[in-house]
């Protein structure tokens, strides 16, 4: 049986993927946090990607394929920690992959890397510039990770490396920034703005990761879900109340709340509820035949 290593396995997406690939793969997982009650078909090692011991896992285990999910995606900690885990961790992983004969690597990035800018076209393809760092320094590390992985992709043509950029992910297991925003009792929106947002269910993202592995995908791929709706429609469908806040006030409130970490939503993230950051997912569909199982209604119902 071929061997698969999943980093960040204790997170929602890691658990789903382990289950999805449990038949046909011998799975090892690493994570900083333990996975209580992990199923027996997964060998979970609790360790830090940034530590030397992580390399031992690859040396001993010699995985055929690696799925890299170990990213800090929230803003509860410091930017330094984020950067260290996301960029430093990825760099270490890439080095080990090259050294220990990994044949396939899939990295879960995000469509956020394009940034939400007023001049964004509705359907950005994979060649669009990664503008997120322009106005949103807090997630500059995501763009940096992409840079590392793309140069790895060109440097090691013998390794099938792919980057997936899914849109706003919602579901029961996965904790995402958009999920916690839409999970607020009263969801604030910016007065006079109502951008189109694309959503995808966590299990469809899991399916996309599995397809990337099974098809030995190479390259960068957007993963768009079943479609797009205006932000306010999404809030309504999830069954939340909404409050419209004029921009200057919203900015002030969010900045102060974030400064004291009452609410971990950086002010720069506000652009994502003002402007669209929508992508064209046709490249991935052509490469894998991917078809989201969950409709927009299903996606909203799963978090309602």
């Amino acid at each position: 049986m071929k061997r698969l290593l999943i980093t960040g396995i204790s997170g929602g997406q890691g658990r789903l993927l382990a289950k999805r690939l449990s038949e046909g793969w011998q799975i090892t997982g690493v994570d900083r946090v333990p996975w209580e009650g992990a199923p027996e078909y997964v060998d979970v090692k609790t360790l830090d990607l940034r530590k030397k011991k992580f390399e031992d896992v690859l040396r001993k285990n010699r995985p055929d394929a690696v799925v890299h999910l170990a990213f800090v995606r929230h803003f509860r900690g410091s930017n330094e920690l984020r950067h260290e885990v996301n960029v430093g961790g990825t760099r270490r992983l890439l080095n080990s992959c090259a050294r220990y004969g990994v044949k396939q690597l899939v990295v879960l990035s995000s469509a956020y890397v394009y940034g939400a800018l007023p001049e964004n076209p509705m359907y950005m393809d994979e060649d669009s510039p990664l503008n997120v760092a322009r106005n949103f320094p807090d997630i500059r590390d995501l763009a940096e990770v992409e840079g590392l992985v793309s140069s790895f992709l060109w440097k090691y043509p013998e390794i099938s490396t792919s980057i997936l950029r899914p849109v706003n992910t919602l579901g029961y297991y996965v904790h995402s920034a958009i999920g916690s925003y839409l999970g607020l009792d009263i969801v604030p929106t910016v007065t006079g703005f109502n951008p189109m947002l694309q959503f995808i269910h966590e299990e469809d993202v899991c399916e996309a990761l599995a397809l990337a592995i099974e098809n030995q995908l190479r390259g960068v791929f957007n993963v768009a879900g079943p479609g797009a709706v205006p932000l306010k429609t999404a809030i309504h469908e999830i069954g939340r109340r909404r409050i419209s806040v004029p921009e200057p006030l919203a900015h002030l409130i969010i900045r102060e709340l974030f400064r004291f970490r009452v609410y971990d939503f950086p002010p720069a993230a506000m652009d994502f509820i003002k402007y669209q950051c929508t992508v064209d997912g046709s490249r991935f569909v052509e490469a894998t035949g991917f078809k989201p199982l969950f409709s927009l209604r299903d996606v909203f119902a799963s978090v309602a």
Partner: protein
Amino acid sequence: MFYFNKVAELAASAIQSGLSLSSSSLPGLPFADLSRELSDKIDQLPIELNEYGYDPWGFDPDVLKTSMMTAAILYRHYFRVVSVGMDRLPPGRVLLVGNHAGQIAFDGMMVATAMLLEASPPRLARGMGEYWLATLPWLNVLMDRMGHSIGTPSTCAEMLNRDECVLVFPEGVRGMNKVYADAYQLQDFGLGFMRLALETNTPVVPFAVVGSEEQAPGIANLESVAAMLNMPAFPITLTWPLLGPLGMLPLPVRYHIEFGQAMHFEGDHNDEDDAIGRKVEEVKDSIQSMLRRGLAERTSIFL
């Protein structure tokens, strides 16, 4: 300057909501029929909507029904538009290219209305707005819901590839905010539309609007004031800024819109500017000759 177009529409759609109330209670009002007609035409638009009633770019027919009502009233009762050549419109993807004038984009509004009310089947003419429109509260949303978009080349190409009808004014501000001495003389055309037409294999339909120049004759365009206010232009007309916001109202001229024969172009869309420019000249010539003919045939500016 799309912005003013939208402001006018926004303001008028507020009036319109009052109108539609009164028109339903008083069936004798002429606008009740117009409202029904507009609504029927919008229902006939060959546009696929998702489960929540939006097209892939955020268009919402219900919003269009209310917001276009003002335009329809202006079309029938104010500018009393005469449109010819709609029967020559090819089915499928099409790029409408025409002359721009009149300080405020009523010409775009009237062409879009003609496409809804007079074309068969009705078409949604999608305008391509300036980037900064996306930063303006409400207007950015209204623009999307009405089927327009921010004018990035990739959005335009995407729309054409999906057989939509896109409306462009290659003169841009140069045409719209020129002074009256230059009336009906086409200014420099941008080349972008031709590259997109070649890339997506889209026929170009030239159109000429006669009447728009007289709706608000420009005396001057204060570019330094415009730069200061971060606006594309700052026109001075007989009434603006003299009469304040009221001065933005256009004169009740009669509009004549002629749609020409579809033009098909072939070639490399990445060709050098000169080669693209020659093709653009063909379109420009076609519009200019329609303008000349239209002006010669016009007997009165207002009647």
